[in-house]
């Protein structure tokens, strides 16, 4: 009998494993990633699209081998920031206006600008009249506050 099947192609079981790995990864980290994406893009429809793109991206393939939450957090943030519309990027100025002298509020603001808005340390330092060292210190303050609260 002739066979149209081929012996040297990637095995079905391997492909199925990748498929299952991605689904398992989504089941485990989907809600964390969605929470982060919603943090950055507060529009559910767009956030869901980004979430699908995230779990279809080649970068997620590396995570299927040794999954870490840290990796997922960074990938979800990067994907959300890349998909964020230009109009949302202009929110820095308006957000900076509500800056306060309270250390925790300032730390929260720095976290928001950096993690959610994608602003670099230098830009935040310039806009908030802080030194780059103090901007980094704000991350420490923010997570210290989260641990204690």
């Amino acid at each position, binding site marked *: *009998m*002739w*066979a*149209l*099947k*081929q*012996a*040297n*192609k*990637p095995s079905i079981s391997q*492909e199925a494993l990748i*498929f299952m790995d*991605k*689904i398992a990864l*989504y*089941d485990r980290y*989907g*809600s*964390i990633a*969605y*929470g*982060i994406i*919603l*943090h950055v893009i507060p529009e559910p429809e767009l956030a*869901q699209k980004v*979430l*699908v793109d995230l*779990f*279809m991206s080649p970068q997620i393939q590396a995570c299927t081998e040794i999954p870490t*939450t*840290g990796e997922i*957090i*960074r990938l979800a*943030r*990067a994907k959300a920031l890349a998909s964020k519309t230009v109009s949302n990027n202009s929110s820095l100025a308006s957000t900076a206006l509500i800056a306060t002298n309270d250390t925790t509020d300032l730390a929260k603001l720095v976290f928001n600008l*950096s*993690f959610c808005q994608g602003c*670099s*340390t230098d830009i935040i330092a310039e806009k908030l009249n802080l030194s780059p*060292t103090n*901007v*980094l*210190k*704000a*991350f*420490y*303050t*923010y*997570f210290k506050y*989260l*641990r204690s609260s």
Partner: protein
Amino acid sequence: MKTHHYLTSGILEAYLLGVIAEKEKDELERELATDPDLLAQLDELEANMEDYFIRNSVTPPPSVREKIELRLSETEIEKWEDVNTTEPNPKAKKSQSTESPYVQVEIDDTHIRVHKLWRTAFIAVFILSKVFLILGLYYYFKSSSLEQEVDRLKATTQSTHSAPR
């Protein structure tokens, strides 16, 4: 001292969030490679950060999972087709070159597939065969009983004619 600086400067947090500058990142990674205490602190901080993000997680609607499954299936089919078209089997190539209107496939089971009309035809033939069998048996027994009757009548007639008057 340096470890304490890293612990309170916010560099570790910025590193974990992926918002650190490249220069500081390289410097920290060099330090992490030589300082197991700092690495342990980083792991602990990562665990705390994970807790924060787990607390802030939001369950996506079920349609998202369905979309991912669908797109994964589509991707697999595309890959499968690509492999089939880019690396054809010599045997398959040979069979395709004959320009046969049929596709040759490997079949492992012992069943054959026929048109569904054959089923009706088979039932009709089966019923007719039974009818003819019953009719055949009926006429066979009937003829044999008639023969017996004829023989009996012949014997009766002969005995009547040959009886002394």
